[in-house]
């Protein structure tokens, strides 16, 4: 599927992407002084655009503090976006109010990273999974418990554990509960915010398999946020690489991993340990100062770490533009 971030939302429903994000911005104010006036802002998410189709997975990858989680939270409305447009199933979300907003919320769910803090320790699994149904008055109250049990089975939990509390489950099981909760409202899109990074490898594989299975069965789309290139590679159809609030490269998975275009993507791939002791990278100890969102370099934010950087990179911010092979890259030199 060719990508064009600058294209307007398409009119025809079947060809239009399910979710279209344009120039999303999340800025946090910096306050100072006696009266705590706003003296500036942290541009945590600084003009992010992408599209997501039905039953598709977009991997959003980047290092800590690059704004990938903030993007996910802003899309699910958990923190306010300060700019940009989100179109969901052909409708502008920013304009939605009341019931429409609630419906949008219903169709867009989130799974969190830490399976320990994402479940209320004082509620049983049944309570946790029933809550979405109760809030949106879905189904007859008497049937809701049945729905809960069905969902538990679907995500691989034993229904007889419905009365148990989160602390009685292992990390992997908790993550299943988190996924079940997100699925209760039958969403079209699930934002997966580092859903497996707190898990052991063996359990991580269980959850990744589960997510893959669910997508196949339910046709749900994922915005899959992770810092782990391997995990992203496994699950995604397309991958977007973020650096300091911006997408620097967006491409089909195979293309991206086979031949990274942006120097940053290249650096990420080159820093990931190989799994073959005979093919070691031979990392070097060289150190560098990594800028943060509060102190963003001018022009291309990556220029301070980029081997290709020139004067132009300092003065002129490279736009994210489509290349001949269909991928989008924000670099003056690649």
């Amino acid at each position, binding site marked *: 599927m060719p990508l064009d971030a600058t294209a307007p939302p398409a009119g025809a429903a079947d060809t239009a992407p399910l979710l279209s994000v344009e120039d999303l911005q999340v800025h946090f104010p910096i306050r100072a002084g006696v009266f705590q006036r706003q003296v500036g802002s942290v541009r945590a998410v600084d003009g992010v655009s992408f599209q997501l189709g039905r039953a598709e997975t977009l991997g959003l990858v980047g290092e800590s503090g690059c704004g990938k989680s903030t993007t996910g*939270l802003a899309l*699910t*409305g*958990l923190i306010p976006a300060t700019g940009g447009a989100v179109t969901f199933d052909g409708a502008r979300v920013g304009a939605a109010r009341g019931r429409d907003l*609630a419906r949008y*919320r*219903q169709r867009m*769910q*989130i799974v*969190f*990273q*830490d399976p320990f*803090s*994402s*479940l*209320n*320790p*004082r*509620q049983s699994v049944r309570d946790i999974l029933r*809550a*979405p149904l109760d*809030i*949106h008055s879905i189904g007859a109250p008497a049937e809701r418990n049945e729905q809960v049990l069905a969902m538990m089975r679907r*995500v*691989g*939990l*034993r229904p007889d*554990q419905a009365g*148990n509390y989160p*602390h*009685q*489950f*292992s990390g*992997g*099981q908790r993550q*299943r509960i*988190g996924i079940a*909760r*997100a699925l*209760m*409202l039958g969403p079209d899109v699930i934002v997966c915010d580092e859903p497996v990074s707190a898990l052991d490898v063996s359990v991580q594989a*269980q959850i990744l398999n*589960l997510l893959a*299975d669910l997508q196949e069965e339910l046709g749900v789309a994922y915005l899959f946020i992770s810092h782990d290139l391997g995990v992203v590679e496994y699950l995604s159809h397309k991958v977007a690489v973020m650096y300091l609030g911006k997408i620097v490269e967006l491409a089909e998975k195979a293309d991206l991993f086979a031949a990274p275009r942006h120097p940053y993507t290249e650096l990420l791939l080159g820093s990931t340990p190989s799994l073959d002791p005979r093919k070691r990278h031979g990392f070097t100890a060289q150190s560098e100062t990594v800028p943060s969102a509060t102190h963003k370099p001018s022009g291309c934010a990556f220029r301070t770490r980029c081997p290709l950087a020139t004067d132009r990179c300092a003065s002129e911010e490279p736009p994210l533009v489509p290349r001949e092979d269909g991928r989008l890259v924000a670099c003056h030199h690649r």
Partner: protein
Amino acid sequence: MTDAAQPAPQAARARRRIRWPKALRSAPLIAGALISATIILLAIFAPFVATHDLTQMDMPNRFSGPSAEHWLGTDNFGRDLWSRLVYGARISVTIAIIAVTLSAIIGTVIGLVAGYFGGWVDLLLMRLTDIFLGFPPLVLVLAVVAVVGPGLLNVALSLVIVSWTEYARVVRSTTLSLREQNFVLAARAIGASPARILWREVLPNSLGPIIVLASLGLGTAIIWESALSFLGFGLPPPAPTWGWSLSYGTRFMREDPWMSIISGAAIMVTVLGFNLLGDGLRDLLDPRHQTRGKS
């Protein structure tokens, strides 16, 4: 799908194994619970455990020490001290419970609202809290009792005015941290209203500190009540309040120390009991104490 649920019974078994022995091993908790329970039971069953009429005076026998007839001796009117202390427990505990319950409710609501909504609501409520914190507590209590007059409910009310702030501050800070917890975000993601979030998600998780504060608060309330009686602002006689007994007792401390010692000890033991209970609960409810040593 794989059988991921398999180890759960093990986990549950382990949990039980950890919890009970821990609760039972904690000597302060047990002592606190026993003392508190005893005091509350004595208060409830005062008519059955009291051996003498509360107001039966016997001036020739005033200040008699403990004896078979008067287990804890007699007071300044020759009344049976044991019976009066038992009935006094009723008053002290009732006042303490009313004061603590009301403080906890008021403080919790304010803390929840301030912590969850933040912004100017928070600013306003916390400034209000600061105002009440800025008073020396005893001055405020005295002033309030002077306004409303002495009486069981009034004394309790005056204690509420100085103690709700503590709950507000604690609940606010737990709310602030809970607000950022993913399960609260998750509740928002599934569309829960603020009221539902506060009631279902935040409050149950704030109960630990509230319970701890409350049991410590019971002790404090009992001390405050006795201080009020000491200064003459407590319940009027012949109410057998501990504060009066101690207050009278201290006047006769030099010649007839029994009354002072026994009433003081009654207050101390009770406060100690509630404090131990509160501390024990704090340890028990603290999640850090529940996890087992990691490898």
